[in-house]
């Protein structure tokens, strides 16, 4: 469905993604693991067209998308739920959802999809006219995902969806994502919370300083020492690999 072939991305002089290659099968949920600054957000933004890859290719169903503008990529069916939610804070919930459906031409069924979002995320129900910036963190994350779903994406990119949420809310969120997966939406989830995301994902990759350090099925990854030490071991992230942080400037 989605294929990355030798993707290299730079932020000025910083080589943020180095020869990244991996496949995302149709209907799969792929977890992208890695510490802060490992390149997860860069990978998301390169896919969405906000940053242009210097070399390599990104293919959606065999079609190159790495030279397209962000709005073209959304039209082709890839929508991102960005890190930190990035809602339109002074727009109402309904207006945020309407912007999610911006690329669609079918107004009537977009309206039905709005009702569908409220079914899916009951916390938002009855709040269509509330200003998005006044929602709680959990509600905002639900709205961010609902807004992305309004585009009817075939591929959903989620960047750190659990960030800043309580454990209970994270649970709820991942249940909702699992439900979306069962409906056949392909998902790429960047997460620091490796434990939960590998539980849900079929496959995963581990990014380290911009490189794919490991990739495989979730079961395989869980068994590797690296993943265990670095990500499953609750909070002691001061792990053994010193070059694992710092935005890919080392090497």
């Amino acid at each position, binding site marked *: 469905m989605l294929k990355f072939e030798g993707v290299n991305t730079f932020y000025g002089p910083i080589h943020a993604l180095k020869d990244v290659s991996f496949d995302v099968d149709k209907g799969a949920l792929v977890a992208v693991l890695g510490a802060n600054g490992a390149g997860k957000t860069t990978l998301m933004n390169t896919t*969405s067209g*906000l940053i242009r890859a210097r070399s390599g290719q990104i293919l959606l169903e065999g079609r190159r998308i790495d030279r397209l*503008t*962000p*709005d073209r*990529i*959304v*039209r082709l069916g890839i*929508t*991102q739920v*960005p890190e*930190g939610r*990035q*809602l*339109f*804070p*002074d*727009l109402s919930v309904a*207006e945020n959802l*309407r*912007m*999610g459906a*911006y*690329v669609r031409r079918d107004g009537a069924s977009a309206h039905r999809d709005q009702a569908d979002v409220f079914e899916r995320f009951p916390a938002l129900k009855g709040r269509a006219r509330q*200003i*998005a*910036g*006044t929602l709680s963190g959990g509600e*905002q994350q639900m709205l961010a995902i609902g*807004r992305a779903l309004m*585009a009817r994406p075939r591929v959903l990119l989620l960047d750190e969806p659990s960030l800043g949420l309580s454990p209970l809310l994270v649970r709820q969120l991942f249940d909702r994502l699992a439900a979306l997966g069962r409906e056949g939406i392909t998902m790429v989830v960047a997460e620091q919370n490796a434990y939960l995301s590998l539980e849900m994902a079929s496959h995963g990759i581990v990014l380290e300083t911009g490189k794919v350090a490991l990739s495989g099925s979730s079961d395989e990854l869980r068994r590797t020492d690296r993943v265990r030490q670095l990500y499953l071991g609750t909070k002691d992230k001061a792990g053994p690999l010193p070059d694992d942080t710092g935005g890919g400037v080392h090497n």
Partner: protein
Amino acid sequence: MLAQLIVSGLAAGSLYGIMALGLILIYKTTHILNFGQGDMAMFSTFIALLLFRTYGVPLSAALGGALVTGILLGVVVDRGLLRWAKNAPVTSLFIATLGIGMILQAIALWMGLIDARPFPYALRGPPLFIGDVVLRQHDLLVFGVALAVSLVFFLVFKFTKVGIAMRATSQNRRAAQLMGINVGRIGTWSWALGLGTGAIAGCLVAPIVFLDLTSMVFVMIKAIAAAVLGGFTSLPGAVVGGLLLGVIENLFSGYMPPAIAPLKTTFVFTLIILVLVFRPHGLLGERSVGGH
């Protein structure tokens, strides 16, 4: 006396308000403060005059021509000029807009658009008397147009997809891109609408002031002041700020002794500094609740 001063102040203030609406619209979506707004409005107004005087087009059609000129000018300025400098810092683009304004002044001179004869009134007739307040027909027109422009802005930003997308883009440009909003096109829309609004203001100002190359620049400075007063990011604030400004300066020049009365503009700007000291976001400024 008081009622009369307030009414004429509101008429002048409506003009500042309309002008400020165009400025703020462009500022909100592109973060560019268009210092050329006055010259661009002047140019569109001169086109109306050209159509009316030289080509004998009926006045209403000539005014429509000014509106179309403003809209096209917006597209040209954004697509044809600023788009090429999109990597420049936004503050440098402020100066670029000033430069575009100068170029338009030069073009107006070169095309022989400057016409010393007064600009025609669209509504000409005996003034109305309400109690002891005298209301010129042109003032009525100004009120009506200001109301109509405000209403159109309200409807566009509240209910149309492109209007909501303009607000979305001004609040979070990156998120707007991720929703598939072509933010470049939204910028062009804003320029078109902003300079169209400027053309409307120009045609309303022209019959009152002697129309020359720089007459709109003073209106623009007042409009910027009105925008600051209203909070700079708030469209209703721009209108309220404009009306307030018009009334305050009129009251000042009406009640102050003749020696001080001409200093009304100085007074207004001093007042604005005071407002900014006590209300840094202006009178109706939006402080984003969500933040980003």
